[in-house]
């Protein structure tokens, strides 16, 4: 099981802010996780196929798309940040 979090525009587009979910074997990095989420279709497909800029964090650290993750991790997806 991993915990997935969605923020800001992405949260609104997906209509959800978080979920706890078991991912299939083989879905072991951010890139594969995004591809798997995109298969849900609709907004998921639009958001996770890489057309819109998206950032990912694993356990609250920014990571690149090739970064792996493990069972129990907290994985967040969000648009480029716009604070300050």
């Amino acid at each position, binding site marked *: 099981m991993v915990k997935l*979090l969605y*923020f*800001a*525009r992405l949260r609104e587009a997906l209509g959800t802010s978080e979920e706890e979910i078991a991912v299939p074997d083989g879905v072991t990095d951010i890139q594969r996780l995004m591809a798997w989420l995109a298969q849900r279709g609709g907004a998921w497909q639009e958001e996770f196929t890489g057309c819109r*800029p998206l950032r990912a*964090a694993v356990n*609250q*650290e*920014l990571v690149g798309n090739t970064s792996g993750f493990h069972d129990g991790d907290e994985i*967040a997806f*969000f*648009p*480029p*940040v*716009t*604070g*300050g």
Partner: protein
Amino acid sequence: MVRVQLEDFDAGAEITRLRLARPDTGAVAAFIGQVRDLNEGAEISGMTLEHYPGMTEKALEAIVDQARQRWNIFDALVIHRIGALKPLDQIVLVVVSGAHRGEAFSACEFIMDYLKTEAPFWKKERTETGDRWVDARSSDDTAKQRWTENQ
């Protein structure tokens, strides 16, 4: 020190606190960001700032740590607001104290540039034609890149 809060802050009081903390402090550089009443041609009646509780604080701490490692400064403070804000409200305060001005200025600007590109905050603006999420600006990436080129 890093604070993420709904409440407004007293920039003058924070600056004075850092200024007087050490008698060998010669320089204090500060930056305040506030909500403008217009953005990309549209009038802004207000905005909401969302963050990622836990990660946001960690990201800000990491940015401040980088600044401390890179420059010889005495202290650095970041306060960033979240929640509902209106034009002329303060959004962010960065204060850096040090012995001399050059390092205080650089560290203060570095913290702002990194905050703009690495700290998880998102702005949603309220305009006459509805709400909209603010897009990230490529000029912020450019501003950040300076710090890796000028090593």
